[in-house]
């Protein structure tokens, strides 16, 4: 029965003989493990296409929605993290395999006559692969994406003569990154590059079949082998190894998603993706007017030289072990790349935001100013909740529903004597003022914190407020900047250090003008815990 179906298909389409023709390709006797990389690269592209389409099913390509839709994919959808992980790490592993493929072809001298065109098409494919990396980098629209792309477009703008036009082409007129840039990058990534890649792969494969797999000198006289099954087996195993590495990375390494792109964030330190780090470091070697040498001239020369290799090296094909010049060049390139990359990694200051900052849920109370936290404490301390039940309109208005619209002096009076039968307030004048500001101006985060903030942290915030720490320090966007900002203190200082620092600031921070604070051990514990609980 199966035979009949196959025969019918063969008769109508010729597919069986086409497959047999494809699998029966004669390959040189020397063909083997060193020639598996092209197949792996092809498979890597197919994986990227597959996962890319899946991502696009749930991704909204505009700056307004991109980040939240990606976050939705990763946090809300089952296996969304896996799909994005495959695409993200797959991109890196594809770059690796493409570069290894190029290196192998270069070392073996497989670009020589008559295979120059195969090499040229391969070079264009390399550039296309890098273009995927560049355009895809912006699409998560987190800080990393945004600031990384700012740097990229600035570099493009330095191209002599073409700079302004390149910028306009990238949709980044005047150097700013907005909706147009985003649309251009997305369109290039999913509409322009994939068909181009398929076309180029088609030509590349056609040329390989036309000229045959490159033999080793002395190989020509030996009997040929068939592509199937031995070489197919080797290609399959190599592909599987590549995929196994990818799968391991997806499982073991969390795919990054930072906070949403914030063009006003001046603290973010942009870094390109790891495979572009060497270019970034190269740039640092050239200063002032010479910068263009590192950003435009050298990369252009390098790419140009790679394109021209088949026309520069026109000697007869020799065995790979005898190609000392090529080996030396590859070694030099690898050392240069590794050195620059290592230097870039070593000189990168610790990031101000962790790679997966966008995936962590931060409780509302960790993000509101200390004055709001303290006001929540005063509200609780004065038993305001006896009448004002949050989320329910009862005896007194529900303050969670809408901010109070009473004038400040009414509120002050109300706090002093809330009701005829209520006990008088225990709050001081300053505390009453803080609470009055809070009930009139609270935002949604504060409302959420109102019912959920842990009492020990609320007490810490009340101490922070009583001791007027905000006169010198900034916390969650409120306060002065005389002293260091306190967000993310836990990442910088140990608990012990913070506790001792309160008693003798000058001893721990030479030159500090902070007065010493003598807290009871209970209070010291509360205020220290509160400060260490506030994230970056």
């Amino acid at each position, binding site marked *: 029965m199966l035979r009949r179906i196959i025969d019918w298909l063969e008769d109508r389409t010729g597919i069986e003989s086409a497959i047999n023709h494809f699998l029966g390709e004669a390959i040189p006797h020397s063909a083997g493990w060193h020639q598996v990389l092209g197949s792996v690269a092809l498979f890597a592209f197919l994986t990227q296409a597959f*996962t890319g389409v899946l991502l696009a*099913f749930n991704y909204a390509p505009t700056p307004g929605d991109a980040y939240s839709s990606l976050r939705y994919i990763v946090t809300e959808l089952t296996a969304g993290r896996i799909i994005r992980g495959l695409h993200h790490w797959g991109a890196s592993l594809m770059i690796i395999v493409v570069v290894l493929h190029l290196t192998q072809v270069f070392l073996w001298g497989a670009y020589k006559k008559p295979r120059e065109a195969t090499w040229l098409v391969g070079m264009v494919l390399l550039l296309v692969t890098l273009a995927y990396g560049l355009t895809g980098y912006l699409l998560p629209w987190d800080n990393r994406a945004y600031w990384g792309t700012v740097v990229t477009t600035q570099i493009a703008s330095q191209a002599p003569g073409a700079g302004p036009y390149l910028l306009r082409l990238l949709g980044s007129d005047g150097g700013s990154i907005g909706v147009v840039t985003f649309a251009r990058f997305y369109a290039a990534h999913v509409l322009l590059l994939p068909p181009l890649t398929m076309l180029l792969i088609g030509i590349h494969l056609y040329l390989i079949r036309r000229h045959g797999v490159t033999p080793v000198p002395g190989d020509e006289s030996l009997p040929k082998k068939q592509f199937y099954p031995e070489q*197919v087996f080797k290609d399959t195993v190599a592909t599987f190894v590549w*995929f196994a590495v990818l799968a391991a990375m997806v499982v073991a390494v969390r795919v990054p998603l930072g906070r949403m792109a914030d063009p006003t964030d001046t603290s973010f330190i942009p870094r390109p993706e790891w495979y572009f780090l060497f270019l970034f470091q190269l740039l640092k070697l050239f200063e002032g007017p010479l910068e263009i040498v590192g950003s435009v001239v050298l990369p252009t020369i390098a790419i140009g030289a790679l394109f021209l290799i088949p026309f520069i090296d026109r000697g007869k094909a020799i065995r790979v072990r005898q190609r000392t010049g090529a080996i030396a060049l590859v070694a030099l390139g690898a050392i240069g790349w590794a050195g620059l990359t290592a230097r870039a990694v070593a000189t990168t200051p610790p990031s101000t935001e962790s790679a997966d900052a966008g995936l962590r849920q931060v409780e509302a109370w960790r993000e509101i100013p200390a004055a709001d936290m303290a006001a929540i404490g005063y509200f609780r301390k004065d038993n305001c909740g006896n009448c004002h039940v949050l989320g329910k309109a009862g005896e007194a208005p529900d303050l969670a529903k809408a901010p109070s619209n009473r004038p400040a002096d009414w509120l002050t009076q109300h706090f002093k004597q809330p009701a005829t039968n209520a006990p008088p307030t225990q709050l001081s004048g300053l505390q009453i003022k803080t609470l009055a500001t809070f009930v009139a101006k609270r935002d949604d985060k504060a409302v959420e914190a109102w019912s959920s903030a842990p009492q020990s942290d609320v007490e810490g915030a009340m101490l922070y407020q009583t001791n007027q720490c905000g006169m010198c320090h900034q916390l969650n966007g409120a306060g002065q900047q005389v002293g260091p900002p306190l967000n993310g203190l836990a990442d910088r200082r140990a608990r012990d250090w913070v506790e001792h620092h309160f008693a003798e600031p000058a001893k721990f921070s030479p030159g500090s003008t902070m007065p010493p604070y003598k807290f009871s051990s209970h209070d010291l514990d509360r205020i220290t815990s509160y400060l260490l609980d506030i994230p970056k």
Partner: protein
Amino acid sequence: MSEPKTDRRTFWMAAIFGLPGVISAALAIPAALYLLVKPKSQQKGTWVEAADLSQLQVRKPEEVVFRRTRIDGWRVLTEKATAWVVKMDDQNIVAYHPQCTHLGCAYHWDQKENNFICPCHTSAFSIDGKVLTGPAPRPLDRYAIRTENGKLLIGSEIQKS
């Protein structure tokens, strides 16, 4: 050219078909889960306060308007929704979804006829939602409901009978 040994060839064939099989499964299973499983936040329903039970009169349908939040992919929308709420007796309350089960027109309560009438194709439903006349294929759909502290809560789930 010597033929490779049979067992080596068998091993090659096993790898050529087996390894891509493993890869395909590793890609297809996550893809299927990704496309077919409901998003996590939509798996648990939400409840909104819609009416005060003491204000409802027995066997007198009321059109109740309430605001509910609906999750649309990565967006959270707040929108107006309506329900026809009937207090059948002191224990039993139902909240009907406000669209006719025939083709989704908005129906209304006809005080004179004492039933729900759909203006589109004159389907009529009794006060307990049963089809009296017309093309409607099934009784009125109901919202999931709950009562709490004298309030009627309407859930996001719609029950079809």
